[in-house]
């Protein structure tokens, strides 16, 4: 198949960016989107040009590195996929494909399509953990039975890969889906309960500090999330945030 790529190029965080056009021919349908980008970069290098910078690593949809905004959608067309799991068969012959980086004030562009998502790390550092040391002498793993339903629900929240698609797709650049997924995972499990009040307050404070926007319940994040994280997590976080603020000392 033949396609035309329009790709965002930006030299650095403070440079002006622009779209650049690259026609591509003989693209195989079985290629992944990133393999198509590899082929383009190979060509650019051979022609003496700088390749397009983008983040990627595992290429199996789990590390959360890849982050392309394709034709106006985070991770492109299709549901429950990351950019690396997107294949060219999802596009039509002759199509023009627009590729942009995640756009959010909290995710500054490093170069071309690569952005800085360290704000997410700082939110986790503010409280996204259980305060247990690695002593090795915690109680036996089966000492507290956890109802399967709770464990499964916690797992569903825990599958977040921290890619930032929710932020990129939200018109407010809100990070509520990301934050609420971690808050939910830990507050659904007995191990996370002792700290749940402080956790939600600290994580939400950090989220605001990083410059993410507020949630206006459009639900776009849930649609674009490659792991299908549900916005019921946001509802749970709102509930917990409110009750923690009302009852904390």
């Amino acid at each position, binding site marked *: 198949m033949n396609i035309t790529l329009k790709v965002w190029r930006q030299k650095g965080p403070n440079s002006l960016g622009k779209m650049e056009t690259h026609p591509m021919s003989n693209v195989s349908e079985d290629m992944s989107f990133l393999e198509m980008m590899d082929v383009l970069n190979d060509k650019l*290098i051979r022609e003496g040009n700088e390749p397009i910078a983008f983040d990627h*690593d595992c290429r199996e949809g789990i590390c959360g590195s890849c982050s392309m905004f394709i034709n106006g959608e985070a991770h492109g067309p299709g549901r429950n996929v990351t950019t690396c799991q997107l*294949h060219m068969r999802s596009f039509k012959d002759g199509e023009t494909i627009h590729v942009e980086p995640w756009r959010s004030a909290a995710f500054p562009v490093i170069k071309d399509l690569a952005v800085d998502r360290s704000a*997410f*790390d700082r939110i986790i550092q503010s409280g996204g*953990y259980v305060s247990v040391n690695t002593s090795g002498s915690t109680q036996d793993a089966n000492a507290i*039975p956890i109802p399967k339903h709770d464990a499964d629900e916690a797992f569903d929240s825990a599958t977040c890969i921290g890619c930032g698609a929710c932020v990129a797709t939200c018109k407010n650049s809100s990070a509520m889906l990301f934050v609420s997924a971690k808050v939910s*995972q830990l507050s659904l499990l007995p191990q996370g309960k002792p700290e749940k009040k402080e956790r939600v307050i600290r994580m939400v404070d950090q989220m605001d500090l990083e410059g993410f926007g507020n949630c206006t319940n459009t639900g776009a994040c849930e649609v674009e999330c490659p792991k299908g994280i549900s916005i019921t997590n946001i509802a749970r976080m709102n509930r917990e945030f409110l009750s923690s603020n009302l009852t904390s000392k």
Partner: protein
Amino acid sequence: MLDSKIPKGPLADKWSKHKNDINLVNPANKRLIDVIVVGTGLAGSSAAASLAELGYNVKSLCFQDSPRRAHSIAAQGGINAAKNYQNDGDSVYRLFYDTVKGGDYRSREANVYRLAEVSANIIDQCVAQGVPFAREYDGLLDNRSFGGVLVSRTFYAKGQTGQQLLLGAYSALSRQISKGKVNMLNRHEMMDIVKIDGKARGIIARNLITGEIERHSAHAVVLCTGGYGNVFYLSTNAMGSNVSAAWRAHKKGSFFANTSFTQIHPTCIPVSGHYQSKLTLMSESLRNDGRIWVPKNIEDVIAIREGKKRPTELSEEERDYYLERRYPAFGNLVPRDVASRAAKERCDAGFGVNKTGQAVYLDFSSAFFRYGKTEALTRGIKDASQAEILEMGRAVVKSKYGNLFDMYKQITAENPYETPMMIYPAVHYTMGGLWVDYNLMTTVPGLFAAGEANFSDHGANRLGASALMQGLADGYFVLPYTIGDYLSDDIRTGEISTDRPEFVEAEKNVKSQIAALINNKGDVPVDDFHRRLGLIMWNKCGMSRNEKALKEAIKEIQELRQEFYARVSIPGSSNDFNPELDKAMRVGDFLELGESMCLDALARDESCGGHFREEFQTEDGEALRDDLNYKFVSAWECKGVPSDAKLHKEDLVYENIELKQRSYK
């Protein structure tokens, strides 16, 4: 010369006794000691978090944009632990025995026993951190089986166990970062080890965003930098996984052990085209329920390849379930090396089922019916039709492996609920790595290696669900003790200045290497060389090896390396975000490592585990070990170029296990 420092005494008491005997550093003094941990996978995150909790000042580096993205995240199936929750006869000894046997008797008894011993604690620790393992309806933890064992000891979180464990370790690490006990440097890559008076005292690192070269000093350095399967270009490793930190350590004096021991995983999605950048694993857990087969008759193979027949049209009699045929006792759950070779054997004989002839079927139809029948009975439906049973069965399989089936469909555009999956072996893990003693210290004092980066626990073949176990065991429970023993001598050393001439010299060398690459007036992109290296390795140092091919490979790699430095083209500058330069540095190291792997394979005139030398096999094609002459760990000392490396041998002493021909029949 090589002292493995294995403690004396009975096997079961060694670790407890050792912990009692070693020196400790008092809490106040820990604050005076700096440790650098390179890599943030399971071993690195857990080590950095644990050392910081103890009170050391930790500096942690990862090349990814966040520590949570290290490739441990991609592990699917599970983590082993000798909990015996299933009451099926598991024990520390049995996990130890299975691991040594699975490794084809090329691992150290004492290390493996310690691993089995701390395995149960890992599960306790992870549950306490909020890792959402799979549970039964009674609220207790669920288990599944993995290859090479006869018990159910694998804990899992659907097909994303690695992710959940890594996020657990990452959360522990994040907690220490928030307390200021860990200084986390994302998008940083280690370029070299700095030695002062023979001891590792720091590293030279490169900031991958700005290209800046930085000096970092410490009293000890821990490498948790993973494996080097990417030397094959196509592997299940992440694109960035590399050998560079370990290789630079090797060039600074750390011996490299069992370099050629590579695990080829039997169940991966086959290669689809020349543009392919990586291979995707289908978890070994699928072999719990999937049956592997190829057609019995070559006519059916041809018809299937030409699209004239579909696999589902073949009757049971027309299928060759070759693993069940050859290994009735373990069937589809033989260890990975055995399963991979068996697939290769069938495909080499012409029975491969896709266009390239390099694929076999992994079929769930019997599992659909088996689960469907149980499900129907549980629901009280006694006269369910075949179609209803099939539908219920598919739903059960979906709940167990749903995400893996989705992933398969996404990549291949085929629906594995309706047609069998096609799979083929792919490079997955490297058992070889930096040689370490019982304390996980390399031959350079103060330089430690943990997780896949070291060689210590898996011998010549790793059992499924044991990599996660080893990474966390090393980081949470072994290193925090053993590093203290070493550091107890350093309480009076004080801060180490990065102005020392050793740092200046190391930095100068790194800068000149980078300058040489970036200023090279070449015309060929890095990936081109990497692909060619991968092909040489796969064809000549892959699933089976022989003397002639290995010798050819050595020569070809030497030539390729020369061509690389003459013709590689790297765009952009070294003072910028430049992924091509990052890659070039890594590929340069792979081009040396590849030759060393061939040399190691050539030096081992026997077959064991994943190392299969065609000259050494039994009549029915199984690996033929030579315990008399090769019951050792090969440990290579760098003497300049790879071909000058000097071989040292650590004899493996088996006091508790009788050496036997490994049999899964």
